[in-house]
């Protein structure tokens, strides 16, 4: 089986997973306690009105008919009507998803860029003061609630130091291409918009990244300690190779595979769980929207958010699997 076949097979595997997910979330959303139509129409709505809207939305039909109608809509890019925002769910997704994607991506980049070198340093200087400090920080990073850290950051950098804005994404760049403000301002070479967007995203991205950063750091440290004990590390050192070359070129590559799995899983996890950080920083993201739809029992919104996060999760993990092959030569797609 070649690389292309492998990727194609993985993509095909995603289809039953997504269908299963859609059935599961569709059924759950329908049996959740609370009547969404009554909620949407307000407490003063008459029974007649409730029934009318129910008919209008096709909720009077059998569950399987509703599901098939929904699924055919999804294939046409129609996720139904949101009872919360009173417009097409597709429009909501278009507005909210880029904000979360941008926030989560930057948080992951920060977690990787900071977590890996810190983990390596901690392993190389095992049991030294630096290692102890890093471990305590990592432990705190995993244990501290993200929203609490977010509030502390706000008080320090927005209130006391006045360096960063407290809330929001800032103004959109003059030209929007992808909906990701940082990327759009770079693509249009609008440096001032880039700086403004960076200032807005800095605190939320850092607050969101800390847990994953700490996880990556701890994993890299543990794997690197193992690698440093291996014979090939000793051999490399005895050949007199520079230590940075040994660590970053040879050992880190071996130590990175388990961390890569965590990165893939964390990315998906952050997409759906950025809610608390988005709430503190009034970040107009998908997680924020997802929780609102859940509270309002706006099931079209709930299903759409779950599907989007599910697809993103599956795609990211597909990339991770592909990356394995590049990092670990023992993984050969042709040998599967």
């Amino acid at each position, binding site marked *: 089986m070649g690389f292309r076949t492998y990727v194609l097979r993985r993509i095909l595997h995603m289809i039953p997973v997504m269908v299963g997910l859609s059935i599961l979330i569709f059924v759950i959303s329908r049996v959740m306690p609370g*009547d969404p139509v009554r909620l949407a129409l*307000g*407490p*003063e709505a008459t029974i007649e009105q409730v029934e009318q809207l129910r008919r209008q939305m096709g909720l009077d039909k059998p569950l399987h008919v509703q599901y098939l109608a929904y699924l055919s809509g999804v294939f046409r890019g129609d996720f139904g009507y949101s009872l919360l925002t009173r417009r097409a769910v597709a429009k909501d997704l278009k507005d909210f998803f880029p904000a979360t994607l941008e926030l989560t991506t930057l948080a992951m980049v920060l977690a990787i860029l900071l977590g890996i070198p810190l983990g390596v340093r901690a392993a190389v200087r095992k049991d030294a003061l630096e290692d102890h400090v890093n471990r305590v920080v990592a432990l705190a990073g995993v244990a501290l609630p993200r929203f609490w850290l977010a509030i502390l950051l706000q008080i320090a950098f*927005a209130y006391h130091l006045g360096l960063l804005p*407290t*809330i929001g994404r800032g103004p959109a760049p003059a030209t929007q291409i992808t909906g990701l403000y940082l990327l759009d301002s770079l693509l249009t070479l609008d440096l001032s918009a880039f700086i403004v967007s960076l200032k807005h995203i800095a605190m939320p991205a850092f607050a969101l990244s800390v847990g994953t950063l700490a996880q990556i750091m701890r994993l890299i440290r543990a794997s690197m300690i193992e690698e440093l004990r291996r014979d090939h590390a000793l051999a490399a050192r005895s050949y007199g190779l520079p230590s940075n070359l040994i660590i970053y070129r040879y050992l880190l590559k071996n130590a990175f595979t388990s961390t890569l799995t965590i990165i893939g899983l964390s990315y998906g996890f952050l997409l759906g769980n950025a809610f608390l950080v988005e709430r503190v920083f*009034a970040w107009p993201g998908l997680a924020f929207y997802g929780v609102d739809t859940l509270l309002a*029992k706006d099931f079209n919104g709930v299903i759409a958010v779950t599907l989007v996060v599910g697809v993103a999760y599956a795609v990211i993990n597909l990339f991770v699997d592909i990356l394995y092959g590049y990092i670990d030569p023992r993984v050969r797609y042709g040998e599967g």
Partner: protein
Amino acid sequence: MIRQRHLANTLAAIVAVALIALPASVSSQVREVPFTYIEQQIITSIDPAGAVDESSLHSAINLYDPLLYPNVEKGTMEPRPHVAESWTISPDGKTYTFKIRPGIKFHTGREMTAEDVVFTMDRVLRLKRGFFWVWAPVLEPGSTKAVGRHTVRFQLKEAYAPFLGTMLLLFIMDKDLIMANLRPGPFGEFGDYGAGLLDRQDAGSGPYRMEKWERATEMVMARFDGYWRGWKPGQISKVFYKTVLEEATVKTLIIAGQADMVNQWLSPPSFLELKQTPGIVVKEDPSVQLFHLLMNTKKPPLDNVKVRQAVSYAFNYDIAIQQIFVGATKARGPVPIKVPGWNPQTPVYGRNVARAKQLLSEAGFKPGEITLEYLWITGVPMERLIGLLLKSNLEEIGIKTEIIGEPWGRVVERAAKAETTPHITAIFDTLKYPHVDSHTYGMYHPSCWGTFRCMSFYENPAVTKLLEQARRTVDPAAQMKLYQEVQIPIAKDAPSIYIANPLHRIAFRDYVKGYRYVGLLGFDCAFYDFTIAR
């Protein structure tokens, strides 16, 4: 040479004129007065036909003009002229004729006419959203007619006491703009009735026009220069209306001076903290809200008035007010005391355990025989505390209580039938429209059964008759007398434990002037009324 000198002189003259003219042109520009308001609810729609919650009402009040306006200058919610400069009511109370003020311009520049009022009312009734239920009993599409360019007539099916007050909630929309932007939709010739248009711009004549709206985070409203009431120096020219859900963030924003005003939904400890912060004013007013525990009068043993009275006597009101609703006023009957028409003679229950035990015994119940279900709305922790207090109070008279928390959606669903409604439900109920009718007819007439406001399923033929008579009475004094009279039998029948009229609190920086609270939801944040005196 001469030509060159001439040219130089000409240029010098132009520069001189420009230099003289420049300061003049700069000073003639209006100074921008920005204002940042923080709200903890998202604006779900800027269609005033659907506005019932605070944030949506804020958008309606600032982007549109209602037909009448609460008399904020006199500190009351009584209607005063606004878009309608005068009105007449027929002797039978069925015909209301309003004279529209000439010269009011929509944001499109077109003059408002009676046709716009007709269109607005018919649209609400057809959409069946927002406050339509207030008008649905007496009006239907076609009942409103333009009888002149600036005269509009509402023909009611029957006399309806709260009608004039409800005109505060009729926000006039630009008919031509909406009709020119219809998209296919479920309303026949009216298509989507402007839903698509109202996703991106307003259709009002209010003091501000919508400049930007990012759902869930921010709406920017800029002053409308053509506003019919004119502008004075110091008034707010641009409003940054931001949605921030997290309470800690809201506090940080106002303390840091990044917000000028924050909404009423902060917790009492947060308001206390803000009160002690220099430069911040916390304005406290008795609200027109009622916090009460509705007792399901159709569910045994609460179908027995003596049991309901026993429960009312067992409750410790003082602890509830002093320790849970700090600063609140003890409720005196179903009508909040700030509402015009509240009857000071309404009987009030106080804590009297001996009397409670006696009533329970008279009702034929022995201690330990009764178990009641108490329902509180998850997300409102105060209601849980009240439940714990009630449980401890009822234990003293031998009644067991099961405390259950449910989300709001589930509460609304359970309210649909008497059988599914629990024995006791905790509810915050604010005045829905500026008339005492809201807290009498709206809560105790059987027509409201099935909604959260009527989870007591109260029925007393004498009270029902009195309520109907009050609604049909045209003379304001006689009408008010009936509404006052009806409060006495309702309170005696104890369909609720009336606990508190909580305080309304709001916080703003001390340079914000002109804030007024009259009780009607949203109208305190009419930004046109504010001035900034830094």
